[in-house]
C-alpha cells in the first residue's frame, strides 16, 4: 500500500473513532462546523454541503468564457437596422438623459451603426454577425440572451458585479459559491480554476478579487493557472530536489506531525497531513494536465493550438481537460474587448482569437458526451454604447450597461433560442430583461441549486450570490 494511503486510513480511522473525545481547539471547532471538516481529512478535496444539490442538476460544472472589457453586442449578437439608418445622427436624448455614462461624459452623443452584416444561421436561424463565423456554426447549440443589463459602468466594479452579484468588495465569487455548495470531484486538482489568456490587444486588468472566496472559507477561492513559469504557484519542486526527495520529505513531515498529534491531539494536525499529501499529488497531476501530447491531432487543430501556451485556444482545451478531471468551475478570461476606438480593427483581433476556440470547445464537449452536463457561458462584464466614441483612428464605442448580449450552452440549455431584446437602437433591454442576478439564478438552477437556499450568514444577513433583490431563473432558455 502507498505510504500516504496507509497514513490516511490510520488517521481516518482514528478520527471517526474518537472524534468526540479528541482535542478540538476552539478555532478548530468553529471552523469545523463551518467547513464540514467532519467528513474527515479529505473533506476539502471532495464533499459539498449536505442537502445539495437541492434538486436533480442538469449541469455538473460550468465553463465561463469571460470576454473582459465588454464586447459590443451591436457587432456580435444584437442586430439593429434602425441604428444603421441613424448612423452619424444625434442619439435621441430620450434614450440617454439622466443615464450613467463613462468616457462620453460631456461629449456630443451620436449614433454609430453596426459595423458588420448579420445573417441567420442554423436550423434555428439565429442572427449572428459575420465577424463570428465559427460561433455561427454552433448557432443551434447556444441560447442567446439579448437583454442583459448590469449596474456598474466601469470595468473593475462591473466585473465584481458579474462575479459576486454586488460591487462591494469582500463577497464570494460565483465559482467559490458553486464549489462551496457542491464540492469538487477531483481528488488532486482544484475545484475552481481561473485561466487568463495571452495575446490580442492591450488587456484589461483583472483583480484576483474576481475569483476570491470573500467571506467563504478561503479554500474555495479560484486557483490561477499560468502559462509562464509554474502552472500553479509553488507546484514545482525547488531546484535540487527530486520528486523522490520531495516524497521522502512529505513522509518525514507526516510522521513527525503524527507523533505530535499523539501528544497534543490537535485535529488541525490531521488536516495538515492530508493537505500536504494532496499538495504532493497536485505536484504530479498538474504537469500531466498541462501536457497535451496525448491529444489527437484533429483536436489540437480544431482548437487551433499546439500546446498549453496560454492562448485562448489552449485554455479552451485546458478547460475541457479540467472538466474531464472533475474541476467544478472553470473561468476563462480573455481580455482586450474594451474598444473605445478602432472598434473594427480590435473586433477582428479579439474574434480572431476567441471565435474558433469557443466553437471548438462546444463541438469537443459534444463529441465526448460532456456537453449535456457542462454549462458554458459566454459574455463580458457589460456591452457597448450604440453611440459613437472617437478614441483612436476609427470609430469605437463606450461602456454600456443598460443592454448587452451573452450566450449560454449545454447543461440543460435549449440551443438555438434567442431570449429578450433591446430597443430599436440597442440601448436598453426592454423585452424580458435579464439582470446579472437572473443569470446567476439560472446558472445555479442548472447546477441543481435553488439560489434562495444557498446562503451564508455574513454580518447578520443570510448573504447569497443573488443578493437581496429578486432574482429569476430564465425559464425560457431551458431545455
Amino acid at each position, binding site marked *: 500500500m502507498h505510504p500516504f494511503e496507509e497514513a490516511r486510513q490510520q488517521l481516518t480511522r482514528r478520527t*471517526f473513532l474518537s472524534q468526540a473525545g479528541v482535542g478540538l481547539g476552539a478555532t478548530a471547532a468553529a471552523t469545523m462546523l463551518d467547513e464540514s471538516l467532519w467528513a474527515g481529512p479529505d473533506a476539502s478535496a471532495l464533499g459539498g454541503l449536505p442537502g445539495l444539490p437541492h434538486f436533480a442538476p442538469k449541469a455538473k460544472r460550468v465553463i465561463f468564457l469571460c470576454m473582459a472589457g465588454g464586447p459590443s453586442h451591436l457587432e456580435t449578437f444584437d442586430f439593429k437596422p434602425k441604428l444603421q439608418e441613424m448612423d452619424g445622427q444625434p442619439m435621441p436624448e430620450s434614450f440617454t438623459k439622466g443615464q450613467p455614462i463613462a468616457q462620453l461624459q460631456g461629449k456630443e452623443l451620436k449614433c454609430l451603426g453596426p459595423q458588420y452584416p448579420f445573417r441567420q444561421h442554423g436550423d434555428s436561424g439565429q442572427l449572428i454577425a459575420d465577424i463570428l463565423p465559427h460561433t455561427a456554426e454552433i448557432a443551434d447549440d447556444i441560447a442567446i440572451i439579448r437583454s442583459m443589463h448590469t449596474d456598474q459602468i466601469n470595468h473593475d466594479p462591473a466585473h465584481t458585479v458579474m462575479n459576486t452579484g454586488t460591487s462591494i468588495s469582500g463577497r464570494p465569487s460565483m465559482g467559490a459559491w458553486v464549489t462551496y455548495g457542491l464540492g469538487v470531484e477531483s481528488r488532486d486538482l482544484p475545484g475552481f480554476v481561473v485561466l487568463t489568456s495571452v495575446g490580442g490587444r492591450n488587456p484589461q486588468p483583472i483583480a484576483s478579487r474576481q475569483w476570491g472566496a470573500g467571506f467563504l472559507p478561503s479554500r474555495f477561492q479560484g486557483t490561477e493557472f499560468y502559462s*509562464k*513559469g509554474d502552472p500553479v504557484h509553488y507546484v514545482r519542486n525547488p531546484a535540487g530536489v527530486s520528486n523522490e526527495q520531495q516524497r521522502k520529505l512529505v513522509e518525514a513531515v507526516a510522521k513527525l506531525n503524527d507523533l505530535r498529534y499523539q501528544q497534543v491531539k490537535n485535529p488541525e494536525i490531521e488536516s495538515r497531513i492530508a493537505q500536504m499529501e494532496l499538495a504532493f499529488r497536485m505536484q504530479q497531476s498538474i504537469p500531466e494536465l498541462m501536457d497535451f501530447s496525448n491529444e489527437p491531432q484533429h483536436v489540437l487543430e480544431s482548437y487551433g493550438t499546439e500546446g498549453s501556451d496560454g492562448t485562448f485556444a489552449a485554455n479552451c482545451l485546458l478547460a475541457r481537460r479540467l472538466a474531464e478531471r472533475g474541476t467544478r468551475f472553470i473561468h476563462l478570461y480573455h481580455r482586450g474587448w474594451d474598444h473605445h476606438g478602432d472598434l473594427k480593427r480590435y473586433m477582428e483581433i479579439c474574434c480572431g482569437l476567441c471565435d474558433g476556440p469557443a466553437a471548438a470547445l462546444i463541438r469537443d464537449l459534444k463529441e465526448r458526451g460532456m456537453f449535456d452536463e457542462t454549462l458554458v457561458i459566454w459574455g463580458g462584464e457589460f456591452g457597448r454604447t450604440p453611440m459613437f466614441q472617437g478614441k483612436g483612428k476609427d470609430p469605437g464605442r463606450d461602456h454600456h450597461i443598460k443592454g448587452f448580449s451573452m450566450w449560454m450552452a449545454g447543461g440543460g440549455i435549449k440551443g438555438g433560442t434567442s431570449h429578450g431584446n433591446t430597443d430599436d437602437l440597442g440601448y436598453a433591454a426592454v423585452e424580458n430583461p435579464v439582470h446579472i442576478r437572473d443569470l446567476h439564478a439560472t446558472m445555479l438552477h442548472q447546477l441543481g441549486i435553488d439560489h434562495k437556499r444557498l446562503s451564508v450568514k455574513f454580518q447578520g444577513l443570510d448573504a447569497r450570490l443573488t443578493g437581496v433583490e429578486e432574482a429569476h431563473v430564465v425559464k425560457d432558455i431551458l431545455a
Partner: protein
Amino acid sequence: MMNLRVTTFLILILASGALRAEDEISFNRDIRPILSDKCFFCHGPDKEERKADLRLDLREGAVAARDETAAIIPGKPQESELVKRILSDDEFTVMPPEESGKHLTENEKQLLIQWIGEGAEYQDHWAYVTPIRPDVPTVPNDNWSLNSIDRFILAQIKEQKLTPSADADRITLLRRLYFDMIGLPPTPAEVDAFLADKSPKAYEKVVDRLLESPHFGERMAMYWLDLVRYADTVGYHGDQEHSATLYRDYVIKAFNDNKPFDQFTIEQLAGDLLPNATTEQKIASGYNRLLQTSHEGGVQQKEYLAKYASDRVRNFSEVWLAGTMGCSECHDHKYDPYTQEDFYSLQAIMADINDNDSFKGGNTLPTKREPEIEALSPIDRERLDAVEAELAELEQKLAANEGNAEVAAELKSEIAVLKSEQKEINNRVRRQMVTVSIEPRTIRLLPRGDWLDESGPVMEPSVPHFLPQVEKKGRVTRLDLAKWLVRDDHPQTARVFVNRLWYLFLGEGISRSLDDFGSQGAWPTHPELLDWLAVEFRESGWDIKQMVKLIVMSRTYRQTSVVVTPGLLKYDPENRLFARQNRFRLPAEMIRDNALSVSGLLVDEIGGKSARPYQPIGYYAHLNFPKRTYLSDKDENQYRRGVYVHWQRQFLHPMLRAFDAPTREECTARRPISNTPTAALTLLNDPSLIEAARVLAAHAMEEDVKNDRARIEWIWRRVLSRRPTEMESKVMADYRQNSKAAYAKDPAEAKKLQSVGRAETPEHLDPVELASWSAVCRAILNLNETITRN
C-alpha cells in the same frame, strides 16, 4: 460514517446547550438572538420592509393592541398572537413563513413562550448601553486566580462544576508570549534564561521586556492594518501603488510609544483638524485616504465620491463600533437601529475630506492621490530629532574645547558620524496621502444607494440617532466625531477594542463576533468581564500596554491549550468558558517572520519602505495601466518582516494569500484560518522558505556539536524552542541519512539547492552535507507545530 458524523454533531450541539440549561431567561442572551434572526427581517427596524406594520424589536411595538389582540400579551402566552402564529400548522398563518427559509426549533418556541409567560421583559441591547464597572466575583477557596480577569473566568467555570486547565509548560508559555506580543519566536538563549530564572517575577520580567520591544508595535500594527484596510495600492482597476507607508510606520510607532487609544483614534480620523497639527498628526490622518480609489478612464466623479463616502462610513463603523452600517447604505438596517439617515449623516460629517484632487493620478508607479505631503516617517523623525539634539550638544562642546586639539578631534569625528546619519535620514523622505479639509460637499440621502437619484433629503452631519449625541451648536466635524467615540459614556468604542485585544491573546473574542456588536452578533460569553475590561481600559487613560499586560499576566492566559481536563471537551467544545487556552495557526506574516528569524536572515529594522520578497514570475500578468514586472528586492529589504511586505490589493503576495492574509479591500477583524493544499505547497516550495532552510542548515553545520543527533537537536530547539523526543530525533536522523545518500549519488543536484535565494552560504561547507541538512531544516520548517501558536 454519515450517521456517526451526525451523532457527533448532535453531541456538540447538546453540549453547548447544556451550558445554560438551568439559567433564567435573559432577553439579550436568549430571546433577542431568536427574534433578530427569525423575525426582524420583516418585523424589525427597517421601515420600508416592515410587514403588517409590526415591529418586534421594540416592546411598545410588540405589545401594542391590534384588533383586540396583540402580538405579545405579557404573561399570557396562550393569548398572544405571536405564540399562536409560531405554533400554527397552517401554511398561510405560520410564522416565520415558509418562503423566508427560517424555522424555529422546538427549543426556541419554548423559550419564547416561557419568556412571554414571565412578562416579556425587554432589555436594551447590551452593546448600546454604556458599560459600568461590575463587581469582581469572588470564588470561595480560590487559589487559582492571579488577577481580576481570572476571578470572572473562574466564577463561570465553577458554575459549570468544571476546573480551569493547568498552566502551560514554561517553554510553550514563553513561545506563546513571544508570538502574541512581538510576533517572533524566542531564541534558545532566551528560552534557557527563562528556564533558569527561578524568581517569582521571571514571567513578568519577560512580559515587561516584550512590551518595550520595538517589535511589539509591529505585531499590533499587523492587526490594526487589517482593520483599517491598509494597503500599498489603490485597489481598483490598474491597482497602481499609492503613497501610504508613512501611515503604516505611524501605526507601528503609536503602539510602541503606547499612544493612548483615544489620541490614536482622534489623530487618525481628524489629525488634520487638531490645532497646529504636527506632521505626525497629518500622517495619521492618512487613515481617511486608505480606501480603494480609481482613476479608470470613464470614472464619473460623482459616482466615485459617493462610493468613497460609503466606503468610509462602512470602515469607520466596523473599526470603532463593530457596526455593520454598510447595510444602511441602501435601506434601514434589518436588525440594528442604524437607519439610512444615520448612514448619510455620518457621510456628511466626513464630507469635508478633499477627494476632488484624488482623481488626477496617472498610470505611474506610484500614482498620485493628492493631497499628499512629503515627510519623514515618525520613526525617522524621532531618530533625526535625537541626532540633531546630540549634534547641537556636541557642537557646543566643540566650541568650548577649541583649545584642546585632542578633544576637538574626537568631537569632530563624532560629529561627522552623526552628520552622515542626519543626511541619510533626510534622504528617507517619502510621500504620504493625507486628509485636507475643504468646504463640505452637500450630502443627500441616496434612495436605494443610487447616486443618480437626487430626490433624497440633504443630510446634516450627526452621529447615529440612538447613541449619545454630540451636543454642539453648529456643524459636527470629524474632530467632534473622533472625540465622541472616546467620551466616557460611549457604549461601543472601549468594548470593541478590548474584545479584539482579548481575541489576539486568547484566540477568541469574549463576544465571538468581533465585527458585529449588533443584534445578530454573538452575545458575550462573559458580559461582565467585557464591561469590566472596557471600563478598566477607559479609566486607565486608554492604555493599551497596560491592558495587554493585564491579559497576559492572568492565569487564564497561561493555561495549557492541550485539553487535559476530563469532561471539558464534552461540555465546552468551543471553549466558551476559556477553561483552556486556544491554539491556532500563526498568521501569515508570522510564518514568514519565524522562518527568517530562526535562519538568522531577518533584518529587523523598524519602519521604512515596503519590501518585495521573491514572488512567482508572471503573477502580475493580470495587471495593466501600466503593465508591470515585479522586481524582488536585491538588498536587505528582501528579509524584512511580513508587516512590511508590499501589499498589492489585487494580487497580494501568494505566500501571504495562502495563509489567509486579507486583500484589505474591506475591514477584516478576524482572518479565517484555512488549511489548504495551496498553503502546503507554499510552505514546501516558496523560495523564501527554502532559502531560510538552507541558511539555517549552514548555521547548524558550523555549530560545534558532537554528532548528527546533537545537530538535529540544535536545529529543533532553534525552530521549536524545545528538544526533540527520542522518536522525533530518530525520524529526523533517518531522514537525514536517506537524504545524504541520495545527494551523495548526485552532488550536482546538491549544489543546485544552494541556488535558491540570494543568500550566500560559506564555501567550505560540503555541498552534499549542506543539502541534506537543508532537507532536515525544510522538514522542520514544514511541521505543523512550527506554524502553530500553542
